[in-house]
């Protein structure tokens, strides 16, 4: 009886962990990161080198972002949708750190205050399947010195997509009106998956910096949502930093029987993997207390009231009219 219970328990554990072990497209996915990966095809974020990440309060004329791969096909492209709606291409370059893209954020006069969408699209033929891998990144281009003049501009604040991207994840409520990241642990991250600008049902995986994973499937209208876990547990409380950003990458995958030719070779099936990384902070509720706040408020109110009362009593008739 005892042995059978253990066996049943092990089988259940096996079923529960199996989808996570078989990670589908996650290992093939390409994604963009602000810091170069130490190695390649390693888990998202676990391989960050020491280096500073982008400040979202200060604008810079150029931003370099890194791909997690050394292997891109010759016709890989980096497309940029700028905050003002214009579309450009960015140069891809390769060195010992892998592929990277340098984004031109100029002019630095505040006219491009907002969110850049960067897409790196890589196509290759595997057997009779066209594999399209897309790495998307939303990059904040903002300086508080520009004066937050677009804070009420709905068009500038709206998450944007491009109709010619084979598969794209569009995240919602990712930044606030001042173009600062606004997500925190405990928040629901909602998104849509679009196939050439139209909603599509796709399987999606979420992977956080620490390796936590979650799988979900989008609705028929392409939407999906998941709750951001707290993914930051420093060894000691004294090491806790409120400005620490946990990160995750969303990986959406879509497959269909579609015939066509790519570079003169025909294919019968199409498989698209697209990614979107983002960052979030630990929720304030994890390290703040209303109870202590109100306690201090009450104590000081009572103390001040007592001081005023005694002062008035002492100076009765002299200063109190």
């Amino acid at each position, binding site marked *: 009886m005892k042995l059978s219970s253990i066996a049943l328990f092990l089988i259940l554990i096996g079923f529960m962990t199996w989808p996570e072990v078989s990670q589908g497209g996650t290992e093939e996915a390409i994604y963009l990161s602000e810091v170069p990966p130490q190695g390649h095809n390693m888990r998202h974020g676990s391989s960050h080198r020491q280096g500073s990440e982008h400040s979202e309060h200060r604008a810079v004329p150029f931003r370099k972002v890194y791909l997690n791969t050394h292997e891109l096909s010759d016709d890989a492209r980096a497309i940029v949708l700028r905050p003002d709606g214009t579309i450009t291409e960015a140069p891809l370059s390769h060195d010992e750190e892998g592929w990277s893209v340098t984004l031109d954020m100029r002019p630095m006069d505040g006219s491009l205050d907002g969110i850049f969408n960067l897409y790196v699209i890589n196509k290759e033929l595997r057997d009779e399947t066209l594999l399209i891998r897309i790495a998307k990144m939303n990059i904040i281009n903002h300086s508080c010195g520009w004066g937050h003049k677009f804070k009420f501009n709905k068009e500038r604040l709206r998450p944007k997509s491009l109709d010619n991207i084979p598969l794209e994840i569009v995240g919602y409520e990712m930044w606030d009106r001042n173009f600062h990241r606004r997500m925190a642990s405990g928040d629901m991250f909602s998104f849509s998956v679009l196939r050439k600008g139209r909603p599509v049902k796709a399987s999606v995986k979420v992977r956080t910096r620490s390796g936590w994973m979650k799988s979900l499937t989008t609705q028929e209208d392409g939407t999906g949502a998941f709750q951001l876990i707290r993914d930051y547990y420093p060894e000691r409380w004294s090491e806790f930093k409120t400005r620490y950003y946990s990160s995750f990458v969303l990986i959406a995958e879509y497959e269909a029987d579609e015939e066509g030719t790519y570079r003169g070779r025909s294919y019968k099936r199409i498989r698209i993997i697209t990614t979107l990384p983002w960052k979030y902070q630990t929720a304030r509720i994890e390290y*703040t207390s209303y109870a202590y706040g109100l306690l201090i408020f009450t104590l000081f109110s009572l103390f001040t009231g007592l001081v005023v009362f005694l002062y008035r009593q002492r100076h009765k008739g002299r200063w109190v009219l």
Partner: protein
Amino acid sequence: MGSIKRLKQFINDSDINRFRTYFQVGAFFLLIYGGYLAIDISSNMPTFACPFVEMRGGTCYLWPLQHQMNMEIRHFLTGRGIGVLTGFLTFLFLLILFNKAWCGFICPLGTVQDWITKLRANIGIRYGTYPEKDFKKINKIKYILLVLLILLPFGIANLGLSHDWATPYCMICPSRTILPLFSADLSQLVIDFSSKTKVFLTGLGMAVTGIFVVGAFAKRRFFCLFCPMSGLQYIFSRLGILRLEKDGSRCTRCGNCYRVCDVGIKEIADDIESRNIVKEDCMMCFKCVSACPEERCLTVKFGGIAIYESTERGFFKRIEKKG
């Protein structure tokens, strides 16, 4: 009588306090809810347009000033230095325009204090006046706060101070805890345990809030005596084109002006030498002008043009109205 003269008489006869009350309500709504109307007056306002109010219609200059001071010395001479200068010049321009009337007519925290005073009066608790010498001792605190709010952020970039000191004044300012409440935002009423500095600053912030509420109840415009914005304004107030002038030869030293003064400025009654009567704690509410019975003894001028004057006729009209 010419129409200009009639208009002047109408203004001089009017009750500035009533006008001020309405103006304060309008300014309060503009600065707290202006964002809903896509209004953003300036990020360098010489008043407590608190940045912790999400849909505010402008931002207090002390917020960008503290951020800008968190900069390495060498950067002050680069493009970022131009940003600091632009911010300061915007602040100065707005200050020159309305001088310290930003405090008396526009400051939302000042308005809240006036509402607390009205509440006290309505529930029948007597107001208190306190000896000037007691307040003289403590009202230098505003300059200490002003120096600290510049030096502490400066120390982050240049002396390796913790980033938790980035906006030290905002952390203890009662605007941060009180004004968001008008947007149903209670999130600032907390103690932040993420670091010792944050515990200290947010704890002090809640303590100051407690002192503020009781203080405003006991003493009119209590917090204005410690306000670093008031100190910063006073440094440049001589440049203001809105001025409060006194003709000492017409003053009988009756003391009416001192008695109605919310911040208890004694010089307004005693000083018969100075022409410019805007003193350190003055918030240019012009209550003194409406309480003065002497013809043109106190005059409010905008760009050299008299816009509100004390008159015997106006004084008695206001007395009659109040019964």
